[in-house]
């Protein structure tokens, strides 16, 4: 595959557009910060994590209301401050707080699982500088018609500061890798 390093996010976007217009397969882009416009440039759909968050929130809120009502009205009814056993306004704060907690922690755990972020994992690619000040565009040389020399020229004209060809070493469970970062 072809890896092009850029020193500026605008140049990176230019390179991504050039890649797509030429019909190249962009495997991924690695950046030191989230570049706005990159999702649209790559044609990627937005994440469905908000749905996960909403589902967890609604489920937890309802579940906590039911649980509290059961303890107060059915399992061990007490007359507290003259309130009726099913005093639902007073049950809302606990339900809200638990909802926020479960929605937040649950969404983050789902994010970690989907993105393959686990303690002790090393980055899948050895790319210098992408956590510092460089933006890397990784293009798969997916068919015989791919002309590396011409591609390198185009990317350099877009502002690439370095272009490199690399072999794919293995296919990890989260996609391609070149063997990963060296410790």
């Amino acid at each position, binding site marked *: 595959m072809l890896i092009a*390093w850029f*020193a*500026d*996010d*605008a*140049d990176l976007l230019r390179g991504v*557009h*050039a890649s797509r217009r030429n019909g190249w397969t962009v495997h*991924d882009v*690695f*950046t*030191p*910060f*989230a*570049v*706005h416009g990159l*999702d649209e440039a*790559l044609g*990627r759909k937005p*994440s469905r*994590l*908000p749905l996960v968050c909403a589902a967890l929130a609604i489920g937890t809120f309802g579940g906590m209301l039911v*649980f509290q009502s059961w*303890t107060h009205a059915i*399992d*061990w009814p*007490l007359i*507290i401050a003259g309130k009726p056993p099913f005093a639902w306004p007073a049950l809302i*704060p*606990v339900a*809200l*707080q*638990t909802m*926020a907690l479960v929605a*937040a*922690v649950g*969404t983050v755990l789902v*994010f970690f699982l989907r*993105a*393959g*972020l*686990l303690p002790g*994992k*090393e*980055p*899948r*690619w050895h*790319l210098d500088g992408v*956590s*510092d*000040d460089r933006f890397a565009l990784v293009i798969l040389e997916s068919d015989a018609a791919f002309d*590396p*020399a011409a591609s390198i020229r*185009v990317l350099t*004209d877009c502002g690439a*500061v*370095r*272009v490199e060809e690399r072999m794919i070493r293995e296919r990890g469970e989260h996609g391609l890798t070149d063997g990963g*970062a060296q*410790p």
Partner: protein
Amino acid sequence: MAEHPLPDTPPQQPLVADDSHWRRQPLVDGNITLADVTASGCSPTERLPGGRWFVGFVVASAMLALGIVATVYTVLVGMGVWGLNRTVGWAFDITNFVFWVGIGHAGTMISALLFLLAAHWRTAIGRTAEAMTIFAISVAAIFPLIHMGRPWLFYWVFPYPNERGPMWVNFTSPLLWDVFALNAYLLVSTVFWYVGMLPDLATVRDRAKGLRRRIYGILALGWDGSQRTWSRYETVYLLLAGLGTALVISVCGIVSMDFATSVIPGWHATIFPLYFLSGALFSGFAMVLTLLIPLRWMLGLEQMITKRHIDVLCKVTLMFGLFVSLVYVTEAFMCWYSGSEYEQFFIVNRFLGPLAPVAWTMICGNVLIPQLLWFKGVRSRLWMVLGIALAINVGMWCERFVIIAMSLHRDFLPAAWSNYMPSWTEIAILIGSFGLFFTLFLLFVRVLPVIAMAEVKSVLKLGRRQPAHSARIKTAPFNPDLAPGPATPLGDSDAAEPSGKSNQSGGVS
């Protein structure tokens, strides 16, 4: 160099001669690059801490040790070592609790609410503010624990099937709402802080070697900067910011309900949730100023935590100070307007009774001294700002004491009136709470990246001309859908690296 538009490059944005509608001050001083942001953010974790850090750490640890001794003494001997009596059942313990919870709220407001409002100036200070929240809430959580008569039975507050009935907790009590609110707020804030830190932990990891690299590698979870991950990360960050903001408002309201749901004058007022929220944000912003001004000096971060940041923080602090002053006036007005002799006595006793010096300290620190922040000359002198912030911290602590202990000590029945004097143990625990907070904060400064490097890098270009390597003014994000303009030459003689080379190997150019 291309002399005509390349067919496969997108239309170029025309050179913008007049960018005044985008003009704003740069958020970072100096002509610094992305690599400079990395170096500034990582170097405090990579070099041995300087003398300034050590002095602060030793002082904070000493205060913490004093607090630990006093706390252990309280738990072993009993609550009688405190100055509480039957009338004043809550004093220093709950004052400290509400004080520290309040401080935590401003941190989440800076990192979450200002993120939702797209206030880019928060990027340099958001991480520090969120850390302040986590440490403040951790300190606050200790007080409900040690103010229990039998703190070793603390787990009874959680609703779990048990052999006592099963006896369930009282979900309708604000004291229990506190348990859920504090736990939720602490855990959500920690998760928000940690997730926000993942890209920066990866940056520190990539610069580290040996054992440090392994430790930061475990914490960074294999972050590689992939766009797919960034996209999900931004979504999660947005969701967490929304949940965090909702928690700020609800937790503050719940803590105020500890008092508002009672009957005594001075507590039973509908303004309490707003009172506590504005007070929390006011004291929290003052604590942010108290932390940031020494921090930027200690770590040499003046280019990133700029005077402009301090200026904006001062203005926000002043705004919340005006809210708090308005609440005081409203409270006093409602006491008179209610026609209730108990309410009217309460407000008179606050300012003329035996504990009145505390109330007057509150007025000085919260109403009078912050008015100095109207003046630009004051806001630009950081030692003055630090002094005002410390005065606000003292004033806000006094406000909590005034609300809690002064409302208790003289309520409906004059035969039950009593005075209150703190014991040495309570004062030591208060000092210890500051010790714990500053110890945790100094450890954070040493071990974790203090600046949100990825966020600062993303706003680095705002308000400034493009750095040297391509001579274009970029004031707006690249938009390929704009009408095509003349192609501008790429990579002119300012370019640091030669173009046209292929298959380069070796180090990063």
